[in-house]
């Protein structure tokens, strides 16, 4: 859940530069390949049928380009094409009534669907965990994945639900009043992770 991006507030600090963001995504891609045994490593059972690759679903707005970048890196490193798409969770949020009506974002589940596949949810910042709770509910209405994993670029703590990420780009200890902003070239014109103190 990314906080709103306003004008530059006092005491803004860069947590990750554009180069850091690229390296972090590359590292996360290697971790996904390792954990989901995409390259066939770890299999000693001979020429068994490899499992279908995982499906990456980004949570809009910034999870969507992140999912596509992660999928591109995974394909580059493993040679396996990994489908990527988007899953909007607005209709499943538990705080709709506390805010003005939100516009819906794009949902784009890749053609093969998610039944019996490993689904990796991708988001920019993991904070309370409520967005991911909404995403799990949304997923169950689209089908029944074999397993669901979570990849986030930044984990800033302060969980309000029993949710944790399987792949974390950077753990950032924060106070609740600080704002963490992920900027991506696709949505913001450049790559960076910023933190604004109070």
């Amino acid at each position: 859940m990314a906080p709103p991006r306003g004008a530059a507030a006092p005491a803004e600090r860069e947590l990750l530069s554009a180069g850091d963001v690229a390296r972090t995504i590359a590292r996360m891609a290697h971790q996904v390949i390792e954990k989901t045994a995409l390259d066939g490593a770890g299999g000693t059972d001979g020429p068994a049928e490899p499992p279908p690759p995982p499906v990456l679903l980004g949570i809009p707005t910034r999870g969507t380009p992140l999912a596509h970048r992660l999928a591109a890196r995974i394909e580059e490193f493993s040679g396996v094409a990994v489908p990527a798409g988007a899953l909007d969770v607005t209709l499943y949020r538990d705080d709709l009534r506390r805010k003005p009506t939100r516009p819906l974002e794009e949902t784009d589940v890749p053609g093969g669907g998610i039944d019996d596949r490993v689904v990796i949810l991708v988001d920019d910042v993991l904070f309370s965990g409520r967005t991911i709770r909404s995403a799990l509910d949304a997923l169950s209405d689209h089908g029944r994945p074999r397993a669901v994993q979570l990849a986030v670029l930044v984990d800033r703590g302060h969980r309000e639900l029993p949710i944790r990420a399987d792949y974390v780009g950077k753990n950032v200890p924060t106070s609740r009043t600080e704002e963490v902003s992920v900027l991506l070239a696709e949505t913001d014109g450049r790559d960076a992770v910023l933190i604004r103190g109070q």
Partner: protein
Amino acid sequence: MRHLLTTDGLGRDEATAVLDTADELKRTLLGREVRKLPTLRGRTVITMFYENSTRTRVSFEIAGKWMSADVINVSAGGSSVGKGESLRDTALTLSAAGADCVIVRHPASGAPHRLSGWLADTRTSVVNAGDGMHEHPTQALLDAATLRERLGGIEGRRIGIVGDVLHSRVARSNVHLLTTLGAEVVLVAPPTLLPHGVDQWPVTTAFDVDSQLPGLDAVMMLRVQAERMRGAFFPSAREYSIAYGLSEKRLAMLPEHAVVLHPGPMLRGMEIASPVADSPRAAITDQVANGVHVRMAVLYHLLAGDGDHHG
């Protein structure tokens, strides 16, 4: 958005937001096992229909149910309305009973507007599902959604509305909405079926169908509303059909890409020939399908937010 009473005064951004929501709802529901969203869980929607309707009522009911709202149908016949209760008392009763939204169809123009006034001090939203000869805003929104889908956009498109404009709330709502969205609207009707003061509307008018057809991107055929006609508006049904009905010959006069709409219920052989209604150029069943998504979007914009934001 607190109420949806007319498309007159509905801003371009607001209308576009509703249409975009409808598009996303359609996409997200496509090919799903469970066509149910939890978004309006715990909200109560009451439909109050004082006039006959199949598609509008069913469409609102499905829309509410797919968003997980509790939907209750009240009809004039089976309620205290039959015992002489006024519209005001019925509305206040339904609101006091916990309705978050009242969807009303009424033969009197302006009834939903009055209703929204009586409910001003409550949290209940009012949706106009058709009032007399005034407006039918969700029909116009679903027509716009269908046109966007079929034509790729509405801005700059030329849309003909043909037939009984005088008695048509669909025509009024469409004139406001389509012109707001940047379309050129031409009303084609016999002089007796054009409303008084139509020269003040942001449209052009014509009496002859054939000369208009080649320039249209879409043609919307209106039902001849015999139930509202007290007097002779045209010599005979046959004569009307020959002069204004959309025949196969007229369909061929439209440009290749042009699409045919009809708000339903259709009088086949009267304003539209049966083969035209069933042709792939007609988007009539698309309109019905889009109606559900558009009404879901309207309920979402009225009921999902905190309700204090009247944007």
